[in-house]
């Protein structure tokens, strides 16, 4: 019994203190992964905040954006042109989604809209592969990937994310005064598309553009509940906490139970947190009345 307690409580801490350099490496790795989660979660938050839709297709939008970008570059378009075209495609996609999916479903219950985005998820997955092929592609936009360079890129990514977010939020707020709902929806979905492009580039550069990219959406969900569905800072901070937390847990506590706890640790962490604060870290206080 004491051995178990020692193994769980003292051992990992001793390991951490024993080699600070390794600990720092793990934390930085966690931050890098966490920022990816943040980027995907950010797409969720934008759409949820503006339209109350829980967009399950965000992960596939990331995949779709990356596929489009790589596909265009493979066909010989220079990076800048490909990027602009991808943005245009994501904008067109937002427009199409608003017209075909969201507008007919206005005023339906949230769960119906959620299911519609899962349908969208399937559709985009098939469509993206149909147009661009399903083999793993390499995305090379010149981002260095060595473990200590990561920190330098890290800051850039953060700034990039923050800039996009700020721009989007200002736009959304400005538009929400006397602007029709449909326009706002197109705007936020396009914005989420832009965030998806950024996320797609980052993930794609790290691990290649492939189907598993769409699965990071599942990793962004605990980030969302930790940070709160409606909070942009929450998405970013939540992503970092989840990223670091799950790496630390995997490296220091994982071996105790046989490893591979990364899959569910984030959910349990978020769940434990929710029991204390049901609206997440930065979420709006949930006020209910009869």
């Amino acid at each position, binding site marked *: 019994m004491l051995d178990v307690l020692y193994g769980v409580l003292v051992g990992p801490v001793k390991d951490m203190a024993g080699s600070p350099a390794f600990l720092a490496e793990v934390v930085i790795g966690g931050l890098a992964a966490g920022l990816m989660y943040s980027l995907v979660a950010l797409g969720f938050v934008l759409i949820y905040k503006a339209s109350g839709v*829980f967009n399950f297709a965000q992960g596939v939008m990331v995949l779709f954006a990356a596929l489009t970008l790589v596909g265009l570059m493979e066909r010989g378009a220079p990076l800048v042109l490909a990027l602009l075209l991808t943005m245009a495609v994501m904008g067109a996609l937002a427009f199409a989604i608003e017209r*075909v*999916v969201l507008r*007919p*479903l206005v005023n*339906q*219950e*949230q*769960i*119906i809209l*959620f*299911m*519609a985005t*899962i*349908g*969208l*998820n*399937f*559709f*985009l*997955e*098939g*469509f993206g*592969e*149909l147009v661009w092929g*399903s083999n793993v592609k390499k995305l090379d936009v010149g981002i260095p990937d060595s473990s200590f360079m990561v920190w330098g890129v890290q800051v850039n990514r953060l700034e990039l994310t923050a800039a996009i977010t700020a721009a989007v939020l200002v736009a959304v707020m400005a538009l929400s005064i006397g602007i029709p709902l449909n326009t706002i929806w197109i705007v936020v979905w396009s914005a989420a598309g832009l965030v998806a492009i950024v996320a797609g580039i980052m993930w794609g550069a790290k691990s290649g553009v492939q189907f598993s990219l769409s699965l990071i959406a*599942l990793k962004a*969900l*605990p980030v*969302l*509940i930790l940070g709160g*569905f409606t909070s942009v800072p929450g998405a970013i901070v939540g992503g970092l906490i989840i990223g670091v937390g799950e790496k630390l847990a995997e490296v220091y506590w994982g071996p105790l*139970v*046989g*490893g*591979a*706890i990364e*899959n*569910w640790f984030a*959910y*349990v962490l*978020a*769940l434990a947190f*929710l*029991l204390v604060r*049901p*609206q*997440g870290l930065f979420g709006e206080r*949930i006020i*209910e*009345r*009869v």
Partner: protein
Amino acid sequence: MIYREAGQFKSTYASDQAVFPIRQDRIVVGLAVAAAVIAVPLVANEYWLQAVLIPFLIYSLAALGLNLLTGYAGQVSLGTGGFMAVGAYTTFKLTSAFPRLSVLLAFLLAGLVTALVGLAFGLPSLRIKGFYLAVATLAAQFFLLWLFNKVDWFTDYASSGTITAPPRTVAGIMVTGPAATAPVRYLTALAFVAVFALVAKNLVRGRVGRSWMAIRDRDIAAEIIGVRPLRTKLLAFTISSFFCGVAGAEYVFLYLGGAETLAFDINVSFLVLFMVIIGGLGSILGSFLGAAFIVMVPIFLTNVPHLLGLALPVALQKQIELMVFGGLIILFLIVEPHGLARLWQITKEKLRLWPFPY
């Protein structure tokens, strides 16, 4: 329907509270059940039983369970796959530890174990609601599958990590295992789903179901008029998990014959949720209609190109399938967000007046 209840007077409370109050309804349902029990095993071939009817019945049971939780009690769950896995692995452990135990009893015991697991994972629902809860139930999904993957004890230390259905007989007839014939497995699944559908129907029309619906519609108001949220929500999780556990056990023992945790991944959870929503939230009939729809669509999509004489590459066909499947779901939600059950209800209303609508 074309027939009406005119002239059928209720003179006892029992007849007033019958599940099917109209005589013609009773006849139709009786005929349908008789056809399912007698005619189908005689007529249907191996392919139809194995690829369509057995999965349909099993998914119907899972959808029933999820519909009780999501449709009636309003608690969205994405952990169905995990709960089904609990049922399957428990049945496997039970049948291998107690070879003489009737496999049907093992299914029910597995349901009980799953109910307890569901109870545990339902606890957060007391604090959190809506999508927060939906995401929280994903914890159940991932944690349970990880557990079954990591702990060899659950698979009896099989090096392949798979569980297989052992050959077991009930009253001298082989029910599970490779030697069990498709009609027998079909009838077993049918018996389970019929009994549980009746149980579910009676649950939701009684006190329990009404308190579930009260919690679903406005939980604070329900609490004020005296519905206890703690008991009600946990009961919904427990009973729903029981259904899902039995369905999961059947999924491996009557349908797949053997499986690893991959068979219960997150896609299963989504599939069952689709069934519930496309069939109709808060409708027993809807669970069956939704299951039929979701089971049939991929088979339909696979076979249509063959029938038209098109030879599509496998990859292309898979992509088109995904697109059509996603598109159909969106289309369905737009056309009738309340599901197939509502469509059926509307049709019945129309038929009442047919052929002289006013």
